C-alpha cells in the first residue's frame, strides 16, 4: 500500500473494518457500512439492470419500470410508498443508470424497518395495472420532453450516439422518443419478472445499525423471496475500433456554442484503465490544469473547460467539454487541444502534476465518506460494475502508485487526436433573403 494511503488509513479507521458483507441463500448480496455517529440509516437496493440490457426498440424500459415500481404491490396502493416514507421523515427516490437501477431510503434508525418492508414488496410483489401504466407512461413521456428542450442535453445524447456505433452506451437511459412512445405494460411486466429478484440485486445498508440486526432483518424480509440468477449479456468488446473522426454539428436556439471532443478509453479489464482518470485530471481539473491554462488563461479563446473519463466498466470515452467564446474560434480551439494532447504523448507529465492529482483523489476518498448515502452509492456501484466493493479501494491504491511513464504510455496508446469524436452545438442559422 502506498505511503499516503497508509497515512490516510492511519488517521482514519480503515473502511474495511466498518464493512460487513454476507449473502442470503437466494443469492441476495448485502453490504453493511457501520457509522454510528448519527442515528440515521441509508437503505439501498440496486438491481443489475439498466440501459445496458435494453434492445433496440425498447430503450428506456428499465427507467419505465422504475417509475411503475412505485405504484402497486400486493399490499400497497399508488402513493403509499411516498405517503408511508414521508410520514416518518424519510427521503427516498429511485434512479436508472447504464448498469443498474437503484432505490434508496435515508431514514431515522428507529424507522428503518419501514424501508425493508417496502423494498421487499417492490422486489417481489409489484402489480402493474393497465390503467396505472397509462398515466405513468404519460409522466415518463413528459420527462423525456424535458430533455428535448435542453439544448446541451440534446448535444450530449447525440454525441454519445455518435461515439458508440454498437455498444449500449449509445442509448440514453430514458430511451429514444419513439421507443418511449411505444412502451407497453406487457414489456414492463416482462422486464420486472426477468430482472427484479434477490439473486440479481445488491443491498447496501449504511448507518447506525449493528451487524447482527441487519442480518436478521434482511433475512426476515428478503430471505423467503425466490432468487433466480440472471444472465447478463456481456458487451465489453462489442464496440468496433474508432477509425478517423466522427463529427456532428447541431444548430439549436442557443446563444453560447458548446464543443465536445471524445477519445475512446479502455474499460476495467485493461491494466491501465485507472490512468484515464489521472489523465483527465491533469488535462482539466482546476485552473492549473493544462487545458484551462491553454484555452482560458493563455489564449482566452474559451470561458470554461472540463475533462472527464466516462468509463464505468466497459470501454468508454474521455470527454473534453469546452465553452468557446464564439463559433469562429472553434477551429483554433480544436488545434490547441490536439497540440496539447500530442505533447502529452511526447513529454511526460511533471511529478508535481501527478502528485496534485493523487492528493486530490485521495482526499476525495476520505471526503466521500462524509455522507452515508454517498458511501452506500459507492459500495453498490462498485459491487455491480466490478464484482466487488473492494474495487474502489484498490483503485485508490493504483492511482497512488501511478507513474509519469504510465500516464505517458496511456496517452500514447489511447489519446490519439486522429481518432476522435467531435460534437458541436451552435446557434440557429439566420435566414438570409
Amino acid at each position, binding site marked *: 500500500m502506498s505511503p499516503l494511503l497508509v497515512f*490516510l488509513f492511519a*488517521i*482514519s479507521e480503515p473502511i474495511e473494518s466498518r464493512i460487513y458483507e454476507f449473502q442470503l441463500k437466494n443469492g441476495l448480496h448485502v453490504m453493511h457500512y457501520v*457509522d454510528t*455517529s*448519527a*442515528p*440515521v440509516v441509508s437503505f439501498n437496493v440496486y438491481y443489475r439492470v439498466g440501459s445496458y440490457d435494453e434492445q433496440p426498440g425498447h430503450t428506456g424500459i428499465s427507467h419505465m419500470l422504475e417509475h411503475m415500481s412505485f405504484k402497486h404491490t400486493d399490499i400497497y396502493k*399508488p*402513493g403509499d*410508498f*411516498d*405517503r408511508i416514507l*414521508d*410520514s*416518518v*421523515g*424519510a*427521503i427516498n427516490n429511485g434512479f436508472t443508470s447504464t448498469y443498474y437501477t437503484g432505490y434508496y431510503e*435515508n431514514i*431515522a434508525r*428507529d*424507522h428503518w424497518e419501514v424501508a425493508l418492508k417496502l423494498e421487499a414488496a417492490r422486489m417481489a410483489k409489484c402489480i402493474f395495472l393497465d390503467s396505472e401504466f*397509462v*398515466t405513468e*407512461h*404519460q409522466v*415518463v*413521456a*413528459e*420527462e423525456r*420532453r*424535458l430533455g*428535448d*428542450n435542453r*439544448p446541451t442535453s440534446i448535444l450530449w445524447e447525440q454525441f454519445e450516439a455518435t461515439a458508440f456505433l454498437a455498444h449500449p452506451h449509445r442509448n440514453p437511459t430514458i430511451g429514444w422518443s419513439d421507443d418511449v412512445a411505444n412502451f407497453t405494460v406487457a414489456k414492463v411486466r416482462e422486464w420486472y419478472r426477468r430482472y427484479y429478484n434477490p439473486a440479481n440485486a445488491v443491498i447496501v445498508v449504511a448507518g447506525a445499525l449493528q451487524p447482527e440486526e441487519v442480518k436478521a432483518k434482511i433475512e426476515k424480509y428478503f430471505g423467503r423471496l425466490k432468487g433466480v440468477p440472471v444472465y447478463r449479456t456481456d458487451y465489453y468488446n462489442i464496440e468496433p475500433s474508432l477509425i478517423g473522426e466522427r463529427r456532428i454539428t447541431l444548430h439549436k*436556439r*442557443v*446563444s*453560447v456554442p458548446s464543443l465536445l471532443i471524445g477519445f475512446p478509453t479502455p474499460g476495467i479489464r485493461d491494466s491501465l484503465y485507472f490512468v484515464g482518470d489521472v489523465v483527465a485530471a491533469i488535462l482539466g481539473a482546476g*485552473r*492549473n490544469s493544462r487545458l484551462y491554462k491553454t484555452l*482560458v*488563461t493563455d489564449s482566452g479563446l474559451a*470561458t*470554461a473547460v472540463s475533462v472527464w473519463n466516462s468509463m464505468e466498466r466497459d470501454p468508454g470515452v474521455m470527454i473534453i467539454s469546452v*465553452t468557446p*467564446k464564439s463559433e469562429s474560434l472553434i477551429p483554433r480551439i480544436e488545434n490547441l487541444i490536439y497540440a496539447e494532447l500530442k505533447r502529452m504523448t511526447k513529454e511526460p507529465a511533471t511529478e508535481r502534476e501527478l502528485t496534485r492529482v493523487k*492528493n*486530490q*483523489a*485521495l*482526499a*476525495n476518498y*476520505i*471526503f466521500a*465518506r*462524509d*455522507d*452515508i448515502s454517498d458511501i452506500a452509492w459507492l459500495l453498490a456501484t462498485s459491487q455491480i460494475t466490478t464484482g466487488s466493493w473492494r474495487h474502489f479501494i484498490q483503485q485508490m491504491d493504483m492511482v497512488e502508485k501511478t507513474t509519469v511513464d504510465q500516464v505517458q504510455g496511456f496517452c500514447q496508446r489511447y489519446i490519439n487526436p486522429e481518432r476522435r469524436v467531435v460534437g458541436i452545438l451552435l446557434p440557429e442559422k439566420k435566414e438570409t433573403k
Partner: protein
Amino acid sequence: MKSALSAVTIALITTINVLFALTIHRDSLTNGLVILICEDQRLPMVDISFNCRSGAVCEPEGKAGVASLCADMLLRGTRNLSADSLANILDFIGAQYFSGADFDRSYLYLRILPKDLTTGFDILTEVIRQPSFPEDEFTRAREQLLFSLRRSYDYPSFVVSAEFDRILFKGHRYALPLRGDTSTIPEISREDLITFHKNHFVPNNCFIVVVGAVNPTDVYSIIKEKFADWQPAPINLPPPPDFNLPEKTRVKLIPRPDMNQTYVYFGHPGIAASAEDLIPTRLMSYILGGPPLSSRMGLAVREYGGLAYDVRCWFDRRILTGAFRATVQTAKPHEAIEKMFTEIRKIYQSGVKPKELLAAQNYFTGSFPLSYSSNRGKVDRIAELEIYRFGTDWLEIFPKNVRSTTLEQVNESARKRLFPDRYIMVIMGNVAQEQLPLPDVEWLE
C-alpha cells in the same frame, strides 16, 4: 484570550425520541466576528464556511452581479498570492473549495484534511482580508459570468423564472437574476468590487462556521490570531421590495413554436424568513405542492393526471419578503394550469385535513436530523441558522414548533399567504392565448 468557549448542546428530537446531540460552540471576537464550531471526530476532515451577511440585495443600483463577482474574485488573487498560486496550494493539498453569493450572503467554502488546517486558515484569511482583484482576472471573471448567464438563458426553465421575477419584483434587486443580468454585468468595474468588499466584508457583518475533526479551543485561537485586528464598520441594510399585488392575474406569454412542452411559472409575493407564521406557511406549502408524488398538486397533476413529470410550489426562504412560486412543464398546459389553480383555491378556501397536517409534521421533524448527519449538512444548516438569525436553539425549537402547529394556524396561513387568481404568470412554449384556461386575465406584452 478566553479560557473557554460557550457551547450549546442541542438534542435533535423526532416524533418519539431524542435522536442525537449536536454541540455548537458559538462565540464572537470583540470586533463582532461570530465563530461557530462543531467538533466531529468521525472522519479526518474539516469543513469551513466563511459567510458575509451581504449578498445580492446589497448591490448598488444598476450593478447587479457585484456580489457574485466579488465572491468569485476572492479566489483570484491576493496581496501576496496570484490566482494560479492560490489554486496551486489548494489543489495540491486536495482541498475542495468554491465561493459565491446568494441574495442574503456571500460565502467561501473550504474542505480540507486536518493536517492542512494551518494552510487552510492562512489561505482563508488572505483571500478574505487581502483580495487584490487583479485587473486581468477581473476582466476574465466578468466575461465568464456573462457567458454563464447567457447559457442559462438557453434553458426555458431559467427564462420563465427570470421573467417572473422581472415582473413581480419590478424596481427591486430581486427583479434581476441572482448573478446579475446581461445589461448590468458589463457595467460592473473592478472598483465596484473593491467598494463592495470594503463596505461589506467587515467582521461585524461576517461569521465563520467550522465543522469536523478539530479541537474547538484551538480553532478559536487560530481565528482570533488571524482576525482579531480586523476593524469593524457600520452596515446599512437595503429596503424590502414594495409589492403591488395585481387585482387579477397578469400573464406574459412567450411563444416558442420549436418546443414540445410548455413551461408554466406563476406566483405572487411570499413571506420573509422572520415571519411569525413561517412554520405554518411551510407546512401548508408542503401539503399543497411539496413532494411531486404525494402533495395535492403532485397527486392531481402527476399521479392521477399524468400531465407532468415535475410539479411543485414553494415559498422563497429569504430575509426580505420573497415570492410564492409554482411551476410545471407539460404538453397539456390547459389541464395542468386548471388543476394547479383548483388545488390552490381548495386549500385557500377549505384548508388542510388533520391527517395531512400530521403527515407533514412527521416529515418535517423526521427529516430534520437527516440534514445534520454529515459535516457538509452541519456546515450548511448552521450557516442558515446564523444568516436568518434563528439562533442555535432553533435546532431544538424548530421540531417543537412544528409539532405544536395547529390546523387553525396552517389554514390561517393559507388564507393569509395565498392569493388565488392574483398571480404573475409566465408561459413559454408552443401554445396560443386561446388554448389556455385564462379567460379573465391581463395579458402582458
